[in-house]
């Protein structure tokens, strides 16, 4: 964790600080001794093999489940979450689903319609899709409604739990750009869970790798995203060389190793 600290400097404001967080499901430990700090305005990508406890960690950080051990300090004002499954209310239209978060955030009724239209446009949802029920939407559309629901409340911290997996390549890029724009413009920080290193390198300021058994963060790497000319080729080259030379990333695609072990 020392590398993470120095990267952020000493004067930065911490948006989220996890210290020694651990969790067990029915006595089976899934997370143990997790330390991770996210500074204001920073996006940290969390990668690790399937089932290593990434979603669990995000849920603990967002106070959806209680940690068994450790301390969580939240410095942000309002968080939002994009879940691994869209988790839409089936009885409400796309519009109604976005309105749900606005209502909970205390946005007055008059302003809601405007916000919904605006956010839907940002996630490329057509106005006619807004009138549809989740059963009438495609998987990618549902996920975009979930993204809109999270962004509509104008949070300053977002938990992204593999949000773009259901989207096609073009849409995925657009959503990634959307996140980047939102971050550059406002004071958005976030924890971005993904298993796609390419996506992580494109979006995040730092990449944290979770141990495949959830026993701590193995390491954190700074993404040189501030570097001039940080375009797709640069991202690709960085990921390739990281995969080849950095021992930290050696095991993140080894799902089978975990199952055999």
């Amino acid at each position: 964790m020392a590398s993470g600290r120095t990267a952020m400097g000493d004067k930065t404001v911490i948006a989220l600080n996890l210290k020694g967080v651990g969790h067990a499901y029915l006595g089976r430990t899934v997370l143990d001794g997790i330390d991770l700090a996210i500074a204001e305005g920073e996006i940290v990508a969390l990668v690790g093999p399937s089932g290593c406890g990434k979603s669990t960690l995000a849920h603990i950080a967002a106070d959806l489940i209680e940690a068994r051990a450790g301390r969580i300090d939240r410095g942000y004002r309002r968080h939002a979450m994009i879940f691994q499954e869209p988790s839409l209310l089936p009885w409400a239209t796309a519009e109604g689903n976005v309105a749900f978060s606005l209502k909970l955030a205390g946005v007055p009724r008059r302003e809601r319609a405007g916000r919904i239209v605006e956010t839907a446009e940002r996630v490329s949802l057509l106005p006619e899709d807004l009138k549809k029920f989740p059963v009438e939407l495609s998987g990618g559309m549902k996920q975009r409604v979930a993204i809109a629901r999270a962004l509509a409340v104008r949070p300053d911290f977002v938990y992204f739990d593999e949000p773009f997996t259901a989207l096609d390549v073009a849409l995925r890029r657009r959503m990634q750009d959307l996140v980047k724009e939102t971050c550059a413009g406002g004071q958005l920080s976030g924890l971005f869970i993904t298993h796609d290193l390419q996506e992580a390198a494109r979006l995040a300021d730092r990449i944290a790798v979770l141990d495949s058994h959830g026993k701590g963060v193995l390491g954190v790497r700074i993404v040189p995203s501030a570097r001039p000319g940080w375009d797709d080729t640069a991202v690709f080259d960085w990921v390739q060389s990281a995969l080849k030379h950095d021992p930290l990333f050696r095991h993140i695609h080894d799902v089978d190793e975990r199952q055999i072990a």
Partner: protein
Amino acid sequence: MPKILQQSLFERLADRTGRVLEFLWSGWAGLAALCLLAAVWQAGHEAYGPFILTSPVETLRAAGALAADPDAWTVGLKTLQRAVTGFALVAVVGGALGIVAGYSPATMRLASPLVTVILGVPPIAWIVLAMIWFGGSDATVRTVILVAALPVVFLGAARGIVTRDRGLDRMARAFGAGPVRRFVSVGLRQTTTTLFPALALALGTSFKVAVMAELLANAGGIGGALADARINLDIANALAWVVISVGLLIVVEYTLIYPVKGELDRWRRAAQPWGIKR
């Protein structure tokens, strides 16, 4: 903005009108079934004669005569009032208990054997007990309705809560909903899936049990009228009262249960392709 709103209002209105028309159209099927029943009834009448089974036309005529009689209205409305208040009672009590049990496994474990016991006691026993406690009053009828329909409503409500999508609870919590908010906006709405069929069943039970309790407890109402018809061996009147009580049930069901259910199930219907709705 106003234009969009206007359009959506129009669309909603059109959607609703469409649903009402479709609903009325489905009435033809119901009418066909009723005609079939009348045909079988007529055959029975011709085979056994008017003293065993009056003809459907004769019965309808008797029902028409009752409909013209203000005293008969009082009798019918008495049963209606008892059945509906009993139903409301069981809906509130059963629904509340079921929801609590759905959220609290301990309550569920405690309540399940009790439900089995209540299910096991024959309704007639409850009528006897209620008669001893309350005599031939409204309270007797309501108590019997409550006991008879409670298990169904309880299980319907509990099941809805137990089988709810916990992911939605989690989602609501992530967006800052407290426990009450989560229950009202997410939990309660999901219960309706199983609670509504249970309520429809309970409503039917309420009417049947109300008439039965009235007859046995000599408490007036349609049950009392049926008892009189039995004494007079007036089969036409007896059947006319049966027709009236079934008619009352249908009226209540279609004004109370179905409109709400249609509104709640809008999203389910959206998933069905045209042509095979309902």
